[in-house]
């Protein structure tokens, strides 16, 4: 394309300052909101204990079942890279059959229904999603990786066998990218995982003057591996600490196959006295950069405040003045937003919980920014408008069953009109969100009932 004509990438120009600021501001605000939530959560000690329990369970289960279903998920995703709940029915059925074969809780009765010719596909689809959700939760972004996490716990805590099997399968399916890292399972004569952790721990305590009590707060993740550069198997032990809602590497120790600490590694995180000093300097520099980035983001946020306020003034004015619930319950939880005079970005108003198609005309007029007029005395009623619209579409042979009508008003250069949309309303079974798909629309004169337009929505044609 670029060889044949001018560079299409220049068609829209570059993002303007306001757009860039909008992204930065949103990130700052999201991070801030999450920090507030994290502060209210239970302590990390409790979470760590819970994670250990989950890990213990996952490990026990992993010893007794096969992992064919995860391989199947990889296989299907490799062929058609979509999230699992978006798979077609035959793919879901294959996964579920393998889940049952691997000993997971799927009853014969369920399999029978899924395979029956008498059961409609929509019902099978629903059942298949229920079975998957029973094991993996209703995560619309469910992927083979998240399946493994659900079953085995966090990747840092997977057993050496699980790591080796998982990455080998990823490689076989073409999902591993260009990584040359290959996880192995120790052979007879190699030191054990526990020995590797113990030796790494002692090395950290000695090199960084870390006490036994401090070490107790870290979680060890272990790999036994080769790469294209290091073809003799070696151990890497990472000590993780809970930080900002995830586990960050605090120390890394590399051991030879025999269990001796080695410095033969380019990574700054690996244990050597010199690397320890460099790592500290590097961490301090990164922290400064991050602080600076956040500070600039917040400054930008303040700078842009008036722009956002003005642009969305109507909407936000409603939040503060017409919705006491928001003022009472939401803003006190958002001191930054309140202090800065920046109002919630994301439609928190209780009135707005449902999509506007469900609102009355009065609410639409009251709560939206559109210039919608309220019906006047000489207009036909909204119900009559829907009736007329329905008739106009049915007369054209359209089937309106299961569609939800919503009514809007407009003033078109002095002419009062109703717009009526007939929407398919679909509740997403994964997350409960409501999807609205406009199928037909009709516009008619609000006084004379004259049909100005009655048509199938373009995107559904």
């Amino acid at each position, binding site marked *: 394309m670029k060889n044949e004509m001018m560079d*299409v990438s*220049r068609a829209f120009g570059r993002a303007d300052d306001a757009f860039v600021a909008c992204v930065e501001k949103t990130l700052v605000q999201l991070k801030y909101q999450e920090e507030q939530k994290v502060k209210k959560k239970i302590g990390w000690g409790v979470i760590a204990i819970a994670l250990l329990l989950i890990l213990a369970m996952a490990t026990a289960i992993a010893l007794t079942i096969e992992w064919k279903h995860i391989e199947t998920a990889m296989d299907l995703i490799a062929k058609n890279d979509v999230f699992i709940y978006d798979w077609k029915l035959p793919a879901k059925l294959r996964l579920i059959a393998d889940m049952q074969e691997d000993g997971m809780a799927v009853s014969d009765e369920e399999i029978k229904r899924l395979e029956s010719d008498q059961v409609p596909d929509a019902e099978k689809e629903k059942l298949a999603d229920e079975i998957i959700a029973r094991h993996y939760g209703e995560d619309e972004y469910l992927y083979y990786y998240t399946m493994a996490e659900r079953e085995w716990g966090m990747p840092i805590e997977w057993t050496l066998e699980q790591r080796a099997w998982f990455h080998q399968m990823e490689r076989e399916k073409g999902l591993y990218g260009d990584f040359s890292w290959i996880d192995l399972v120790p052979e007879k004569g190699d030191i054990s995982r526990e020995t590797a952790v113990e030796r790494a721990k002692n090395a950290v305590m000695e090199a960084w003057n870390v006490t036994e009590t401090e070490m107790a707060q870290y979680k060890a993740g272990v790999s036994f591996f080769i790469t294209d550069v290091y073809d003799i198997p070696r151990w890497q032990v990472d000590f993780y600490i809970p930080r900002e809602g995830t586990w960050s590497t605090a120390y890394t120790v590399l051991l030879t196959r025999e269990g001796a600490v080695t410095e033969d590694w380019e990574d700054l995180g690996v244990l050597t006295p010199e690397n320890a000093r460099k790592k500290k300097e590097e961490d301090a520099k990164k922290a400064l950069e991050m602080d600076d980035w956040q500070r600039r983001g917040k400054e930008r946020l303040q700078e842009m405040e008036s722009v956002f306020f003005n642009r*969305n003034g109507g909407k936000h004015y409603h939040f503060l003045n017409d919705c006491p619930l928001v003022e009472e319950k939401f803003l006190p939880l958002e001191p930054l937003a309140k202090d800065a005079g920046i109002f919630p970005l994301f439609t928190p108003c209780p009135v707005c919980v449902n999509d*506007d198609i469900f609102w009355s005309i009065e609410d639409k007029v009251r709560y939206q920014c559109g210039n919608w007029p309220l019906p006047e005395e000489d207009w036909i009623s909204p119900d009559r408008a829907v009736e007329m619209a329905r008739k106009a579409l049915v007369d054209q042979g359209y089937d309106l069953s299961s569609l939800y009508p919503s009514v809007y008003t407009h003033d078109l250069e002095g002419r009062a009109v109703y717009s009526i949309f007939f929407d398919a309303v679909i509740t997403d079974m994964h997350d409960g969100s409501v999807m609205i798909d406009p199928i037909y629309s009709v516009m008619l004169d609000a006084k004379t009932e004259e049909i100005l337009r009655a048509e199938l929505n373009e995107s559904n044609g």
Partner: protein
Amino acid sequence: MTDQAFERAIVDQIQAMYRVCYAQLRSHADREDAVQEALKKAWEKRKSLKDDGALKGWLLRILINECHNIQRKNKRMAPSEYIPAGALPPPDADSTLHDLMLSLPEKLRITAVLIFMEGMTIAQAASVLRVPQGTVSSRIHKARHILKTQWEEANRE
């Protein structure tokens, strides 16, 4: 991916997000609303993204959905024929290409953005748009034909 890395990765995609929004939404305010809502959803789901290399497609898919939501709402705000059609191109844009791209039907336009502007493969674009690869290749064929023909006409004038 750490939260910091995720933030950085998002910032790296600002231009791509802008182009996707621009292809679908005419007003600045709508584009910013779309990107805000998409970022909120991406942030909530960030832990589910295990393949860092897939971030761009994953993010743009969320963003495209948000743009659709806003389009849908806008259609109810005012009948389409009364919405101002032409937007002035940004000062650093090529005005001819700008108008040509905006003259494409939306489905062709967003496909063209992903392939021609974002450099995605057919498979990647198909994944983002949730349509078969054959559909993407058909759309891109049509978009390319229209753009090429109109570009040549514009240059003849």
